[in-house]
């Protein structure tokens, strides 16, 4: 009995170790590549541990490829879009959670769930035509608004389920004391929602930061390029220069990893609460 328990815990340890190696391998490898001297990148058999750590690729990336500007643009679009989407989702989620007429409420929820099923590239061309006509191409704030639209239904569903967990009686007590709806929302309910807000923000941040195809369609001005668009332009040129690209990939992956590291607890709750989209 003891031996079998011992064996099973060793087996568990080995399995967990294998999962960890598999999960980390691609990331570790791209980080190593980005820190190699370009001469050591293009050798076979491979050099696993670089002779000395070299930042040449990062220098090329930021000096000659303007990656700092792209990073800034990505950050602007992502923060604007996430905050906008969060703000709207707080209001709409609250309304859906507290609204009492069931017929309307269930219809709105159906609209939200259905829009989750729509692949975002089905929206690409009609949105492109519409926004080109309105003169909104190459504007970061316009792209942020588009991202608000693509993240809003999921965020509303998530926000509603977080509000559902906060008892209505607390607000009713506040209203007896003379608070208006908006006062009780901002002074009492929203402070209790902090984990929910963190989850919604993290979700939007990850989705918007990572989005490529809409950005490629809407941004063609080099001064307005975001990181995914820049990476895309690295590969569409003849032959991929893996030294610069590996550094660019590391820089592009960092922000969402940081958000995930800090927001993981809330993201897990959000995923299982909203539970609709990966």
């Amino acid at each position, binding site marked *: 009995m003891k031996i079998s328990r011992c064996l099973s815990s060793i087996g568990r340890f080995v399995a967990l170790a294998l999962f960890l190696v598999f999960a980390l391998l691609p*990331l570790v490898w791209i980080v190593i590549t980005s820190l190699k001297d370009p001469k050591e990148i293009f050798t076979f058999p491979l050099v696993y541990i670089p002779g000395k750590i070299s930042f040449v690729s990062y220098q090329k990336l930021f000096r000659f490829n303007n990656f700092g500007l792209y990073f800034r643009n990505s950050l602007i679009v992502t923060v604007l879009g996430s905050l906008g989407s969060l703000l709207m989702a707080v209001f709409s989620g609250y309304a859906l959670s507290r609204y009492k007429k069931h017929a309307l409420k269930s219809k709105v929820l159906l609209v939200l769930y259905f829009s989750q099923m729509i692949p975002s590239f089905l929206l690409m061309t009609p949105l492109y035509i519409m926004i080109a006509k309105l003169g909104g191409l190459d504007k970061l704030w316009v792209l942020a608004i588009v991202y608000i639209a693509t993240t809003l239904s999921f965020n509303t569903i998530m926000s509603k389920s977080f509000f559902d967990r906060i008892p209505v009686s607390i607000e009713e007590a506040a209203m007896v004391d003379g608070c208006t709806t908006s006062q009780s929302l901002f002074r009492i309910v929203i402070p209790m929602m902090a984990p929910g807000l963190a989850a919604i923000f993290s979700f939007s941040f990850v989705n918007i*930061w990572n989005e490529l195809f809409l950005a490629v369609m809407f941004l063609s001005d080099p001064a307005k390029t975001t990181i995914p668009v820049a990476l895309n332009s690295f590969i569409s040129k003849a032959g991929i220069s893996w030294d610069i690209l590996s550094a660019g990939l590391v820089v592009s992956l960092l922000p*969402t990893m940081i958000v995930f590291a800090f927001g993981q607890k809330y993201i897990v709750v959000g995923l299982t609460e909203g539970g609709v989209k990966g």
Partner: protein
Amino acid sequence: MKKPQDILIKYLLPTLIVLTLLVYLPVCRSFVMAFQNYNLYNLKDKGWNNFANFRAVFTDQTYPFGQVLLNTVLWVFISLAFQFTLGFILALLLRKPFKGRGLYTSLVFYPWALSGFAIGLVWSWIFNGQFGLANDILMKLGVIKAPIGFLSDPHYALMSVIIANIWYGIPFFGIMILAALQSIPNELYESAKIDGANWFTQLFRITIPYIKPTLVSTTLLRVMWIMNFPDIIYGMTNGGPANATNILATEMLNKIMKEYNYGQASAIGLIIMMILFVYAFFYLKFTSRKEVEI
């Protein structure tokens, strides 16, 4: 006490307006475009062409429909099977607490937060035919003698993009199933142990039945999601070589971004949605009937 419900409608309105203008209107427009002659190279002639776009997609020479459909099915179901199984195993391993579990889950679940396109590029570097990590490891292990062009050889390309997708999707199932596992009351396992049930009996009699709703909904949603997920393939092969990794979603992207043929692209989008609709219908019917039989 009567609640001021009218103000709640005002709170809801901005969201409904944004979704109508920027999601539902474009989708309707897309449906209409599927039946129009919509090509950026020739915008003068935007007339109705009935089912010509669909006919063109079904008989396309550059993107043979049969092959693309087969690739889509393989891409979706092989990815799903491995993502689900490995995610399930990982969640089972993580159910009981151990020292450092918090850090471990962060490290093993982080791929969830990464960009599919960037992940595609990272894996295309690993599967690189000249300087790839995969070749080097396999040669050192003695599995292969000479480097393989994983992404340039049609025999290996689809397998390679699927491996990248499996890697990317394990955390989703891991996170969702782990959360469901933690909702199972421990007493169930304790009384099963008293009855002498072994690990497998516990798995099939307690664990799986208890979390079945999660298993059904995650697999259902994941199929839709993987089918609409061209990002990894776009980063690795963009459908090539010789259509070996083209799925419906990448074909649609190429119709938009390379050929500017919006009409045919919308037709493919409609085909994808119809396939998913039929799938969801039968999947839900099948899984709920099975529940009745038990």
